[in-house]
């Protein structure tokens, strides 16, 4: 293990113990073993690591944590907070990364199989999802692969269509500091259609909870997958979320990531690998940050094959002394001719103490492609604010209207109106009266 870090991070010893405990129980411990070795090699990232240059996690790692998540019930107010009014959906709840097996909202259609990750990993027919290139090259993803215990596994068989979205509520709660490392796998078979909405919630004021989550997503040929991620946890949560998407021929994957004020540290790694031709990928993001929050979105669109289309739009609104990071990498391989890849990142910095680091990264090795990127950082339009006030709209309401308007480009992309309404409500709720200066 990275010897330099060891003394300063109390967690290290526990990680080693935990790994030995889990691998002893595992029937097929090889994947864990290689992931663990990978993590040992990489260690926790520091700002010397290019991918973590703007996000210093060292101070967060100094806290004491247990590696076992407590087994508790979901507090009703949290479920109420996560519930999206007027949304027709199937709903399931994971508490500290473990699902109780219940699906609310009706019987799932034929071909849709939902299990605990721990169960699916034992099923021979799904073995392929738990071996192979399991961990990737990122330290937290490797750590997750080495130490995960559970999560949610969703499998849509060929041609299966889930007509209502599946709303997964991740509840995190406990009476002491702990780590939880959920691992999810979602697969849409050939021509299958699936919409997943995730909400992450926690109780404000509770001890620290470090969530290191990994989601592997597989879109088979002609599959359509919609994925909405609502990160609305309270300040006690440190959320590291890695999503690894694998797209096959003519598949469609849409991701919408919303991060609202709350969780002190959020790091999203969203990686879409376009492994076959004629795929379509849309990545939309909105981060509204406040307080001392640090929200870091790292995305990768990896164009491996020809004739693929990707479009990315991330918007940020930064309040108070919060920090935002956007790093959008588009990699176009030499074989990926006729690639269309677009990326845009726009930021509205509301407070003088807020900061944003925006970094588009395009690496293009094919010569017949259309690629573009743009990044802007701006402030409120005083003219627009005056126009609204001159019509009798108070300053706070005017600011809320303008922030909602800025976010509109992203929220309007959601095809479920109740979800868009819910997000707009959340945004308005988080805009306090005075953000000038």
């Amino acid at each position, binding site marked *: 293990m990275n010897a330099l870090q060891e003394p300063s991070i109390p967690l290290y010893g526990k990680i080693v113990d935990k790994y030995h405990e889990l691998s002893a129980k595992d029937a097929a411990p090889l994947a864990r073993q290689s992931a663990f070795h990978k993590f040992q090699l990489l260690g926790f990232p520091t700002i010397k690591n290019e991918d973590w240059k703007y996000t210093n996690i060292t101070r967060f790692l100094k806290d004491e944590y247990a590696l076992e998540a407590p087994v508790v019930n979901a507090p009703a107010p949290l479920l109420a907070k996560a519930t999206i009014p007027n949304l027709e959906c199937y709903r399931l709840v994971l508490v500290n990364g473990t699902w109780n097996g219940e699906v609310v909202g009706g019987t799932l259609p034929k071909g849709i199989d939902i299990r605990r990750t721990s169960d699916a990993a034992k099923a021979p027919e799904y073995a392929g999802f738990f071996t192979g290139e399991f961990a990737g090259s990122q330290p937290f993803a490797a750590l997750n692969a080495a130490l995960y215990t559970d999560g949610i596994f969703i499998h849509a068989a060929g041609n299966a269509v889930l007509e209502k979205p599946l709303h997964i509520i991740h509840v995190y709660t406990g009476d002491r500091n702990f780590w939880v490392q959920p691992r999810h796998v979602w697969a849409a078979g050939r021509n299958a259609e699936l919409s997943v909405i995730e909400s992450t919630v926690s109780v404000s004021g509770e001890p620290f909870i470090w969530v290191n989550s990994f989601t592997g997503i597989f879109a088979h040929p002609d599959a359509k997958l919609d994925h909405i991620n609502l990160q609305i946890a309270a300040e006690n949560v440190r959320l590291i979320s890695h999503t690894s998407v694998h797209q096959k021929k003519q598949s469609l994957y849409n991701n919408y990531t919303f991060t609202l004020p709350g969780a002190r540290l959020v790091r999203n790694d969203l990686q879409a690998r376009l492994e076959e031709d004629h795929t379509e990928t849309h990545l939309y993001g909105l981060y509204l940050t406040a307080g001392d929050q640090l929200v870091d979105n790292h995305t990768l669109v990896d164009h491996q094959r020809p004739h693929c289309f990707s479009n990315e739009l991330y918007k940020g609104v930064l309040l108070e002394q919060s920090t935002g990071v956007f790093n959008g990498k588009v990699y176009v391989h030499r074989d990926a001719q006729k690639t269309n890849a677009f990326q845009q990142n726009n930021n509205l910095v509301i407070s003088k103490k807020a900061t944003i680091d925006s970094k588009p990264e395009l690496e293009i090795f094919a010569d017949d492609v259309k690629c573009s990127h743009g990044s802007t950082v701006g402030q409120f*339009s005083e003219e627009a604010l*005056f*126009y609204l*006030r*001159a*019509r009798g709209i*108070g300053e706070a*309401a005017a600011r809320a*209207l*303008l922030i909602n308007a800025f976010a509109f480009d992203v929220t309007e992309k959601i095809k479920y109106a109740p979800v868009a309404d819910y997000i707009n409500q959340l945004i308005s709720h988080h805009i306090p009266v005075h953000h000038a200066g």
Partner: protein
Amino acid sequence: MLIIRNLHAEVEEKKILKGIDLTVNAGEIHAIMGPNGSGKSSLASVLAGRESYRVTEGEVLFEGKNLLDMAPEDRAREGLFLAFQYPIEIPGVSNINFLKTALGEIRAYKGQPPMDAKEFLKLSREKQKLVEFDAQLVNRSLNEGFSGGEKKRNEIFQLAMLEPSLSILDETDSGLDIDALRIVSQGVNKLRSEKNAFIIITHYQRLLEYIVPDFVHVLYNGRIVKSGTKELALELEEKGYDWLKEESREKVTL
């Protein structure tokens, strides 16, 4: 309704208004004319509360209250309306939601109960018809992609919806073709009453053929240098502004 006394204002340390006196009573229409850079639009901005302007001297009473002490939103809630020379485009804010919010805040300020959705819709339809405003524009984002004429007509539609007691039209005629000018003017004529008043700021006499003012004032170099009735506008049309500039220069030298 509005009493302006010895109003001085500056923007970025530059003196723009140098002692304006003006009284507007209910039921009256005042036209303010003058060459470019004379301070016409600045007067409108100062009255509406644009923060880049600093009032250095004088006072403004609106319905007996000190207007200059109020935030822009409170001036609007008290019944002052500025039709902008350059209405802002705000993508993502729907025209109708914007008006609903504005009307809601104005009613709350006045202690009136909120208007229900049905009532609001009815009012909106009524006013759209009154000022010939396209229903499709009502549901679009605020002024986004509107033509110059459509933006100005939207200002008049907003005016109709909010029913202010004093409306200031800041060069509403600029950039309008003759049809748009007619529609805008007809809107104002339908909305004028014994209870409200208008200040119409314009560079040209053309608009005043449609909206007939009770008084015409000429603003030059931050002061009202001449006031009269509608005939003054015709005189200006004929002779231009140069003779007034001469006259005012003489006054200053004296």
